[in-house]
């Protein structure tokens, strides 16, 4: 296979930044695409080539296969990395890339089609002897069939997008009256997010853990398991805190999960990075959920513990290189917190805005995968994930302390984020004890609101008192009336201090 020269990152935000960095380290030309809403985003700035895609709406840009292929051609790309979300698990896109004579950085379209549809994936697992969650998964199932299946399985059930991942289109239904509206909403979300409204049902297992195993497979039949991740802390069925290794898994369970993940991947003829997801109950019984045929949002915790750069590994596998990794022994403990533009006190409502001030944490063992820059308007059109804080340390306790400090140091002003909520989670005794089931948030943070921010209120009071004492519109400093400052100026602030600063 010829060496890749130029890789198009067919995605946006932090994962596009992540892919671009890996390409540049490998000496590959990195191409970015951006919708009109992302013209000022970070990811095109870091690329070697940047190609506009079209209007903000995903169907006109990041979900538009024709435009992406066209952009790849204009960038003279010979490979496409899809990231996660959008078309990352679209067999159609993978095939279109291949048909355009480019390398798809991921599993072959046939494997995506087989595993990407959850119904088919379950059959593959079943045939490989891996237990699965009780549920109903028939391709193209109608609302009537789903309603009947829900009655058979017994409520509560979980509605899931057959084509999707990441919690989109997912609905927990506890009462029969809510079933019809939930099916309708889930179909709409699934169609909007994945281009297919296909749904499936699962019996809802309340007090379980969500544990997944990272696999890496080359084109020559080698499959490695790189350790498990625990992703149980979720809100609205979407992961917010992930860690590796699982604080719950015993060495025996860990080995059984790794074996099951390798078995599913091998049975499916898997290639590239992928993830086998399992539910695990308190008795260490586990159920295969699905195989994600892409890089996961939470891949960095495995990178930190296994010491493997998964994106570089994907690119090398795509070039045909055999896996040169001896079986990997994970080391230490890694945690990831997802930073969202959302308001945890208002049902995690998305909260876009302009990033007016940004200070990202740094230091030993701290990694921030971020798509942020000062002055950037967080678009309304996309998922509100802003960045991810990943920490590593020798023990879980040390990693928790490191995460707490990193979150305290993370300053994002201009849009509401979940940074306060993440601090509350990481600071909770139940989290420290490792009691991270999928019910963690609803159990420990029902109707959570941030505590009285006494220090912040005091700061606000003092700043406002100073402002009243010397209103900025009055005697302006040499910079001119503060009203004349451009709205995107991150330092547009606090009248009397505008010019009185020591640094000025």
């Amino acid at each position, binding site marked *: 296979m010829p060496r890749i020269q130029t890789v198009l990152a067919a995605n946006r935000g932090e994962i596009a930044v992540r892919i671009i960095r890996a390409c540049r380290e490998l000496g590959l030309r990195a191409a970015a695409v951006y919708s009109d809403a992302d013209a000022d985003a970070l990811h095109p700035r870091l690329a070697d080539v940047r190609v506009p895609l079209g209007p903000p709406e995903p169907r006109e840009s990041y979900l538009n296969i024709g435009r992406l292929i066209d952009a790849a051609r204009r960038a003279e790309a010979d490979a496409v990395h899809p990231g996660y979300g959008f078309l990352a698990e679209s067999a159609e896109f993978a095939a279109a890339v291949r048909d355009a004579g480019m390398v798809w950085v991921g599993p072959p379209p046939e494997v995506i089609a087989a595993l990407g549809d959850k119904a088919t994936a379950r059959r593959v697992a079943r045939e490989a002897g891996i237990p699965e969650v009780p549920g109903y998964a028939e391709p193209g199932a109608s609302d009537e069939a789903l309603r009947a299946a829900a009655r058979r399985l017994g409520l509560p059930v979980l509605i899931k997008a057959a084509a999707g991942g990441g919690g*989109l289109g997912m609905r927990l239904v506890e009462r029969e009256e809510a079933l019809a509206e939930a099916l309708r909403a889930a179909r*709409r*979300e699934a169609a*909007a*997010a994945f281009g297919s409204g296909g749904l499936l049902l699962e019996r809802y297992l309340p007090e379980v853990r969500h544990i997944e195993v990272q696999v890496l497979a080359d084109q020559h039949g080698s499959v490695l398991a790189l350790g498990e991740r625990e992703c149980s802390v979720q809100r609205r069925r979407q992961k917010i805190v992930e860690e590796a290794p699982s604080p719950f898994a015993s060495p025996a369970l860990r080995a059984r999960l790794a074996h099951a993940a390798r078995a599913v991947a091998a049975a499916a003829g898997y290639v590239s990075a992928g993830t086998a997801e399992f539910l695990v109950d308190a008795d260490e019984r586990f159920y295969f959920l699905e195989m994600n045929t892409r890089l996961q949002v939470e891949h960095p915790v495995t990178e930190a513990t296994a010491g493997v750069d998964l994106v570089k590994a994907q690119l090398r596998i795509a070039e045909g290189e055999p896996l040169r990794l001896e079986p990997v022994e994970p080391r230490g403990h890694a945690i990831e917190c997802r930073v969202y*533009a959302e308001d945890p006190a*208002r049902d995690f*409502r*998305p*909260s*876009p805005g302009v990033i*007016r*001030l940004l*200070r990202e944490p740094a230091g030993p063992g701290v990694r921030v995968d971020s798509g942020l820059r000062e002055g950037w308007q967080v678009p*309304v*059109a*996309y*998922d*509100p994930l802003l960045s991810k804080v990943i920490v590593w340390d020798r023990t879980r306790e040390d990693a928790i302390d490191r995460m707490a400090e990193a979150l*305290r*140091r993370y*300053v994002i*002003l*201009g849009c*509401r*984020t979940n*940074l*306060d909520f993440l*601090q509350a989670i990481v600071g909770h005794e139940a989290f420290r004890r490792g009691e991270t089931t999928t019910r963690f948030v609803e159990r420990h943070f029902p109707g959570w609101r*941030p505590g*009285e*921010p*006494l*220090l*912040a*209120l*005091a*700061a*606000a*009071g*003092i*700043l*406002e*008192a*100073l402002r*009243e004492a010397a209103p900025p519109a009055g005697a302006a400093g040499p910079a001119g009336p503060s009203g004349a400052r451009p*709205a995107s100026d*991150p*330092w*547009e*602030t*606090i009248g009397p*201090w*505008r*010019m*009185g*600063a*020591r*640094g*000025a």
Partner: protein
Amino acid sequence: MPEEIVLLVDDEAVPLRVARDGEEWRVSAGRHEVRARLAPLEPGVFTLTTGGRTYLLHAVEAGERRALHVGGRTLEYRVERRSGGRRRDAAGSADLSAPMPGLVTGVLVREGDPVRPGQALVIVEAMKMEHVIRAARAGIVRRLLVRPGQQVEGGAAVAEIAPPP
């Protein structure tokens, strides 16, 4: 002489009493009092010293909106002028405004329709999620302020509900 300053935090009024005492400030919020010193470092950056610790304080503003970060906490707020004219009626029509900027993808009632509490009225889609705006109480749809396909700002009113006849 303490000054009264009212912050609006999430449309809730938070009254503060702020007094200067030499280099120190005293700020009371409800039963709590904080004594602190503030020192400017550069535009938008200060130190706040209280209880034997010094905290870095970052602050920005955009029009009426202010945001600051200190000690790991982020606070977004607006300031109530003492004239009191701007305070919002928190119990009013807040339930019937768009929770965030987005696209109206469905209007489920017509003007003049009776609605019951919790009834879905309008659907707004933003950041890949669907949000249903529901009636807070029973009444009659007096006015619909949005159409399907319309972009709305966060906080924009979408409908007015009159009390039931």
